[in-house]
Structure formats: C-alpha cells, structure tokens
C-alpha cells in the first residue's frame, strides 16, 4: 500500500513539474514549439522550475527534520534565523557593492550569511557536550529577531534600490533562477537530503526522548548534530537559490504526516517530494495570475499556508502533545 502511495506521490511531482513548465503567463504546447517558446522554455522556465523543485524539496525535508529534532510541530526551517541571517548578509553585500565581482557574489553572500547564523544558533544551543532542542529553538528565535531588526533598520535608512533588492531575499523571488547556480544548489541539497534520510531511524528514536534513543544505542548528541547540520545545509542552499519562501517547511511535513504517518524514513523523502511539487505549483500561480506582472511565490505559499497554519493551531491534538 505504502509503495503505491509513494509511486503516486512521485508521479504527482513529475506531473506538477511538467505542468508548471508548460503553464504560465502563456501556455506552451510542447508539441508545437517555435523559436521563442523554445527559448522561454529552456532559458527561463526550466531553470526556474528546477530551482522551485530543489528549494521546495530542501524546505520540506528540513521542516520535517526540524520538527523532529526540536520536538515542536510549529518548527519551520526559518525559525532558526537562517532566513533573516542570509537576507541580512545579502543586503549588506548589496550595500557594499559586492555584486560587482560576479553573478555568484550575492547568492554566495546569502549562503555564507545563512551558514554563519546556523553556526551561531548551534553555538547558542550547545551545552554540556551536545545540542539541546529547547536551547536551539530559543537561540534561533532570538537571533532571528535581532537580524530582522538590523535588516529593517538598514532598509528604513537606505535608498529605494537597495530596499527593492533586499525585499527579494525576504519574500523570495524565483525569477532570478538561472542555470549557473543550479549545480551548486543541487549538490548541497542532495548532500543534506542524503544525511537526513540516512539518519531517519535515529530521528525516530530521538523523537521519543533522549533516554530512549540512548537505550536503543544511538549517540544522541552526535545524531542531533548531524541532523541539524543537514537542515542548515539544505536551508542555506535554498535561501541562496531564491530567497526566503515561507510555510513550505511548516505545512508540508504536516500534510505528509496525515497522508503517510509519522515514520521519518517515509516522512522526510515524502516531505521533500511534496515540498518540491507545492513550490512548483505556487510559483506557477504567482507568475500566471497577474500576468504580465509577477507575484513573489513566497506570498502565494503564505496565502495558502497561513489558513492551514491557523487550522493546525485550532486542532487540539497538535499543541497539547
């Protein structure tokens, strides 16, 4: 049964991938391609859909892992302050004129910012030779507030142009997607996915409590550190690909739990697949409904995601466990 569900989800991802490739401001018929269509398809839509899939996968999987290690159903990859840190780093990069060096500089700055924040959160969450969920969460929230405050301060005192570019990192913008960044993003996200899927069993044990995991023979602190590192890698890579896109990391793992249960061996890969599909669809909606203008996909995911978030909040069994 679960195999059928898995195949079903894979085909859903393939279908959404191709649907978002051929639908858009104008529908492209794959069987009657003219020069312009081909160019749009290859140079603009394909990299964009790939980036959306990669980011969605990274965020979905990160959310599932983080909700596990923090033992908190409302955790989302950005709760660790990674988004605000990378947005701040990218904005500082823009202000300092870093983008002069190459196309990579700003995504690279964002990635470095995200990594520094991850390390900071890790340091604050570290006590007595290991990472502690409660400490991680609070450190993330604290740093997140701090970085957003600094970011807002910069935006409120700087010129319009920098503000516009900074907003890109806050709301997320997939229109900057292009081929050159994809291999790196792919590599990082794949590595992160590999780590967390291979540690899924340990995550199952960790969710039941540190003592229990220890009695099963897992090194609690080592596993938690590895899982945290996988989240940090995936989230940082996704932020540097297209900015912050909210709610995927929060709602997708919950949907998958309803569909396929809470076993992390299934939950993590399925959350990745569904996250990828969801972001593809959200981005497709964002670039289609107001055409020729575009709505950042972070806004679309939040519009779909927030009501669901509130619905989850209303459900008793979510917060009382």
């Amino acid at each position, binding site marked *: 049964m679960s195999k059928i569900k898995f195949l079903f989800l894979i085909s859903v991802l393939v279908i959404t991938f191709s649907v978002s490739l051929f639908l*858009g*401001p*104008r529908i492209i018929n794959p069987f009657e391609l003219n020069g*312009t269509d081909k*160019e*749009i398809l290859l*140079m*603009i*839509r394909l990299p964009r859909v790939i980036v959306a899939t990669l980011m969605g996968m990274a965020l979905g999987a990160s959310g599932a892992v983080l909700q596990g290690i923090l033992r908190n159903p409302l955790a989302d990859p950005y709760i660790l302050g990674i988004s605000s840190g990378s947005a701040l780093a990218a904005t500082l990069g823009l202000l300092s*004129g870093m*983008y*002069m060096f190459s*196309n990579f500089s700003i995504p690279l700055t964002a990635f470095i910012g995200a990594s520094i924040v991850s390390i900071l959160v890790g340091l604050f969450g570290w006590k007595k030779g290991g990472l502690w969920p409660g400490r991680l969460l609070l450190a993330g929230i604290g740093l997140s507030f701090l970085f957003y405050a600094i970011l807002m301060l910069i935006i409120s005192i700087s010129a*319009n*142009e920098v503000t*516009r*570019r900074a*907003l*890109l990192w806050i709301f997320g*913008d997939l*229109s*900057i997607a*292009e081929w050159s960044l994809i291999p790196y993003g792919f590599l990082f996200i794949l590595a992160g996915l590999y780590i967390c899927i291979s540690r899924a069993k340990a995550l199952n044990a960790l969710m039941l409590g540190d003592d229990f995991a220890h009695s099963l023979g897992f090194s609690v602190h080592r596993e938690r550190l590895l899982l945290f590192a996988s989240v940090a890698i995936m989230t940082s890579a996704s932020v540097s690909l297209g900015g912050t896109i909210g709610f995927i990391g929060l709602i997708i793992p919950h949907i998958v739990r309803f569909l396929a249960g809470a076993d992390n061996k299934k939950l993590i890969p399925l959350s990745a697949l569904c996250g990828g599909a969801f972001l593809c669809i959200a981005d497709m909606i964002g*670039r289609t409904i*107001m*055409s*020729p*203008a*575009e*709505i*950042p996909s972070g806004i679309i995911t939040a519009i779909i995601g927030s009501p669901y978030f509130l619905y989850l909040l209303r459900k008793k069994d979510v917060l009382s466990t």
Partner: protein
Amino acid sequence: MELTYSAATKKPGKIWLLNFAVSILLLNYILSASPASAEIPGRIISLAPNITEILFAIGLDNRIVGVTNFCDYPEEAKRKPKVGGMSTPSLEAVVSLKPCIVVMTTDGNPKEFEQRLRSLKIKTYIFRARTLTELPQGVRDMGLELGAKEKADTLARKIETAINNPPTPPFTKGGRGGITEASQKKRVLFIIWPEPLIVAGPGTVIDDAISILGLENAAYRSKVSYPKYSIEEIIRQSPDIIFIGKGHENIKEVSKRLLKKIATVPAVKKGNVFYLSDTLYRLGPRVINGIEEMAGCLK
C-alpha cells in the same frame, strides 16, 4: 441716498440695521478674500521630491523650509531641513518648522497626514497632477496658490512645448505612411530595476513620454504602474528598444544577467539598449530633459 430711503419707509430703524449687517458682511468678505490672494505663504514645506523640484524651478527656493528625505534635486534641496519620508513624514518635524503651507501630493503622501495637519490649523495645498498632460495645469495652479504665478506660467508653457512638439525620433519617421500606424510603432520597454525586474507600466510619467514620442510601451498590458515583470513576457513582446533607468552607479553590472537572459530580443540583438537618467521618474520640471534624452537615444 440711504437717508432718503430710510425716511421714505415707515420703519427706518430696521432698515438701518439691515444696511449695517450687509456692509459688515461685505467688509468681512473683502477682508477675508484679499489676504488669500495678496498674502504670500512665506514658509513652505514640500512633501514630495517632484514638488520640491517644481518649487525650485519657479524660484521659491528661499521660501522652502522643509523637504522629504528623498528630495535630492536640485543640489540645494539636499541642504534643506528634512521632515521624513514621503509616506512617513514626521508630524513633529513639520510642526516645528512652523510652515505657512504644506504642499502635498496625491501620489505617495498619506491622506491621514493632511487631515492631521489641518486639525492642527496648518494650511495644506494638494498637488493633483498625475500625468504629463496634467502637469502644466498643476504647475500653474500651484504657482497661483504660492504667489509665483508668472514663473509658474513660464515653466508650464515650457513643459507644454516639450509635450506638444516632441523631437520626432527617426525610428518612427520612416515607417509612417504605407502600413497602419499601429504596426509601425516601435515597442519600448523601460526597465526601472533589473533584479528583481521592475518596469514602467501604464500610468507612469515614463509611459506618457513613450507615447508622446510615438512609441509603444511593451508593458502596456500591466495593471500596475510599476509591476514586477515576467521575463518571458519580455521575450514574447520582443521590444525594439530597451531603456534602463540609472537607478544606481553600477547599473550596467546589475543588468548584465538580465540582458543575457533576454539576449534574443531585437533591442538587445541590435544594441538598442540605452541607459537613461532618472529625469522621467518624477513629474517635475526635468521631464523636459527626460523626453529630449529619450528622443536623443533614438537617433
């Protein structure tokens, strides 16, 4: 006359009273009407960059006591006291400058701010022009209100001349005649900022300038003035000319990536990509230069 009239009536006292009341009213009217046209507001605060530019252009520089943080043209405007942003002016800063009048715009200033100023008995004037064609009248009206009628009239006439007799770009000249005019119009895209891609849509001064020059804005389908635009739509609309606003010193570097993505559109292929100054971003006196600059690129 009055005396004979009152003598002729049976109730002279009441008529006298009526006459008195009428004359009081008349006097009151004269007194209240004359200062409005004769008294020139000495201390002016401008709450928009384009208004600041107009005020400087009609020779009111010495009477401006406050401007927004965004008022950076002409150079002297930067040295005027600042009262905050366009959408977030500081009430305290405005009040402490003791203005005789605060000039506001419908395009960017909050309405509530005007109401608050009025509740504090501070006079306001609202500049309502939103398009190039409305600009000359807007300048005239404002000049009249601020006691600079003649200079405002001169500026308005200059703008009218620029709008009504635009330098015809050679791009459209050759094509006129044979085929229908619409198909001859060159398509233009004005990129405000390449990443994220923001272009000038309908309802902007840039859009007005484009149509004055007999060109067509490629972003005409947008429902928003400054949309975040779809890159694939640029490729489909294949503009013949692309203007990029110099919002930044290194705009050429910033636009590289975008231009690479749209390398096949006629404008990029034929090298018809031009970098323009920010003169058309504001509905002020520099639109004249902006139209000239745009036309100059087309030669």
